[in-house]
């Protein structure tokens, strides 16, 4: 008991000696500190870039076109059945019952687009521009031209010519630019040939590979005139105000739709209404987000462990060259556990200084990444696609403060574990042998 008390009273003294010991060989200590600090900087930047990427991913997964929740009919999910629509009255009901959410109806169809020189198969997507703007940023991603889905003019035989917005790759493949004319031919809902002239108003930036390659965007009015399909919509995109309420709203909408389909039955062929959130719509992204946290930890652990080997080497050296000194200390009555504690303190100071230096430099570099990012736009002007989504060519970091704390803690814990080996050696010293 008495020994323990005296050990604690000796603590400031031990800490002081440990600190001084560290600077007996300043070059070696600084080299060790820089190795550990670089490891920490790498972990910080890795965490920051990965977080930035996942944030961009979630943003793209929800803001650009998917939104938070979507409602479809089962047959539309299965094979894009043109007739699997939900009636407009359903949309009104959802709007009335959920005043806090924003909703945007969408319609789809396959068709053939022809410009002056080429024709190609396209995916027609119809939206209500005003509602769409409130739910997603799809319509803001204009690369060329001016966004407009209204009527451009009338043809010589008196039909309205609507404006269209098309995908980036499609515009490139068809060699079409804003102001050009596009012909759409498709099979309308009544079996007849739907056909009309359109004017390309704008070309969108890359959103998702499918849309870029074959997407044609028009207003719902234009769609209804082309497709003779006006009894409903294929997809309802929903944006919730508070993301934490998403799951509750999803179940509430599902319940409401179930009630509605008993009071206003749907046709048999289209299947049941299905409500899915963005995680269910983009399972690849959702899984990746779950995994990225584990990634940071594993990669960080590897980097820090490697850097700790440097520290281990330093401490082994430091202990080894002082065995004679330790022998004397033990001989004149210093407790072995004090020696152990002193060596541990030396390691602790090494890692603490490294943590400070690493955090400061890491924060400075991270600051640059957050502002400027890593720019790939020279080699990939359209960004890159991954898991069915297009990313901006600029990779920006985003550091969550708690991640910095975790990284430092991780480093200190790993280095302390590594320092147990040299400390253990001091305990096993035999004063008589080492002093000889």
């Amino acid at each position, binding site marked *: 008991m008495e020994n323990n008390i005296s050990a604690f009273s000796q603590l400031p003294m031990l800490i002081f000696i440990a600190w001084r010991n560290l600077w007996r060989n300043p070059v070696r200590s600084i080299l060790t500190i820089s190795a550990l600090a670089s490891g920490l900087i790498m972990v910080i930047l890795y965490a920051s870039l990965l977080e930035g990427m996942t944030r961009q991913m979630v943003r793209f997964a929800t803001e650009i076109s998917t939104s938070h929740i979507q409602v479809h009919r089962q047959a539309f999910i299965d094979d894009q059945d043109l007739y699997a629509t939900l009636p407009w009255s359903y949309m009104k009901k959802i709007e009335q019952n959920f005043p806090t959410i924003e909703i945007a109806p969408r319609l789809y169809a396959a068709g*053939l687009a022809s410009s002056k020189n080429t024709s190609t*198969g396209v995916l027609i997507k119809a939206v209500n521009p005003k509602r769409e703007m409130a739910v997603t940023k799809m319509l803001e991603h204009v690369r060329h031209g001016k966004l407009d889905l209204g009527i451009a003019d009338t*043809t010589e035989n008196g039909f309205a010519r609507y404006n269209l917005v098309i995908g980036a790759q499609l515009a490139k493949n068809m060699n079409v630019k804003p102001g050009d004319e596009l012909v759409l031919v498709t*099979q309308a*809902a*009544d079996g*007849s*040939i739907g*056909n009309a*002239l359109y004017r390309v108003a704008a070309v969108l930036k890359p959103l998702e590979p499918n849309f870029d390659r074959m997407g044609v965007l028009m207003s719902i009015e234009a769609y209804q005139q082309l497709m003779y399909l006006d009894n409903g919509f294929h997809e309802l995109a929903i944006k919730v105000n508070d993301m934490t309420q998403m799951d509750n709203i999803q179940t509430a909408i599902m319940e409401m739709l179930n009630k509605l389909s008993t009071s206003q039955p749907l046709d048999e062929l289209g299947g049941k209404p299905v409500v899915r959130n963005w995680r269910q719509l983009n399972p690849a992204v959702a899984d990746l987000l779950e995994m990225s946290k584990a990634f940071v930890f594993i990669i960080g652990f590897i980097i820090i462990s490697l850097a700790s080997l440097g520290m281990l080497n330093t401490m082994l050296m430091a202990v080894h060259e002082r065995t004679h000194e330790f022998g004397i200390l033990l001989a004149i009555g210093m407790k072995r556990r004090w020696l152990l504690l002193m060596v541990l303190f030396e390691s602790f100071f090494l890692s603490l200084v490294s943590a400070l230096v690493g955090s400061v430099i890491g924060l400075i570099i991270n600051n640059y990444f957050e502002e400027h990012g890593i720019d790939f736009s020279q080699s990939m002007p359209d960004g890159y696609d991954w898991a069915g989504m297009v990313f901006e060519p600029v990779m920006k970091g985003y550091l969550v403060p708690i991640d910095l704390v975790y990284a430092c803690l991780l480093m200190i814990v790993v280095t302390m574990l590594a320092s147990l080996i040299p400390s253990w050696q001091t305990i096993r010293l035999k004063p008589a042998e080492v002093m000889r």
Partner: protein
Amino acid sequence: MKQIKASKINELHDKPGRKFYSKFFLFIPLFFISFSGFAIEVNELIQHIDKLWRGETSQATMTMTVKTRRYERSMTLEAWSRGKDYSLIVIRKPIKDKGIATLKVKENIWNYLPKINRVTKVPSSMMSGSWMGSHFSNDDLVKESTFEDDYRSSITFEGKRDGVNIYEITSMPKLNAAVVWGKVVMQIDQKTLSPRIALYYDEEGVLIRTMTFDQPQKIGKLTVPMRLSLQPEDKPEESTVIIYKGIELDIPLSSSFFSLQNLQKRR
């Protein structure tokens, strides 16, 4: 026996050249039987079927009724053809689709759409797509031209079926031919030489669709079924039925009639 039937086909078609041959054949009937076997007769039969609705040249009006589980629509069509390579089809009714026309020249298809006053060529990617919302595909129009080149046909059955004497012709695709069907089986009435039913199988030998021919009518010397019903096997409630209202065969039509200009003018 076989020899007589072959000459019967020739007589029906009233071709001076063939007549000469058939007379020529009468002089050496034994020779012919020993050498020719079925081969010629199969070709003659197939050519006969081809000519039924088309002759060398033809003009026909017909109604096409498409029934699907989602919609039912009826159209009145006018069609011209010359050989197997040229055809022009124009929709006359309903008013909404009036003037929509399809031109086929060999393996190309163009559609004319009066509403937008544009001619669009059907790209190869859309060939398997439905033609005018029916159960026929654009490929059905095109592959007709190359059927004889792509398939090897033989008579696989001769005798009574459902109380009628028939020939059964089975057509199998030739090696390396780009075809849609793995097997086509057609039954032909021995007496009138008009087809009764055609069965289309895929490569695995699964029946995909059935075409039935009925309401036969005498046109000149030929017996022509005036109603063609196409029934996809996977959708028993759906069908496309073509009823010929009138056919004129071997009218003067040059191949220049089947031009892109005429595609727009004929509406």
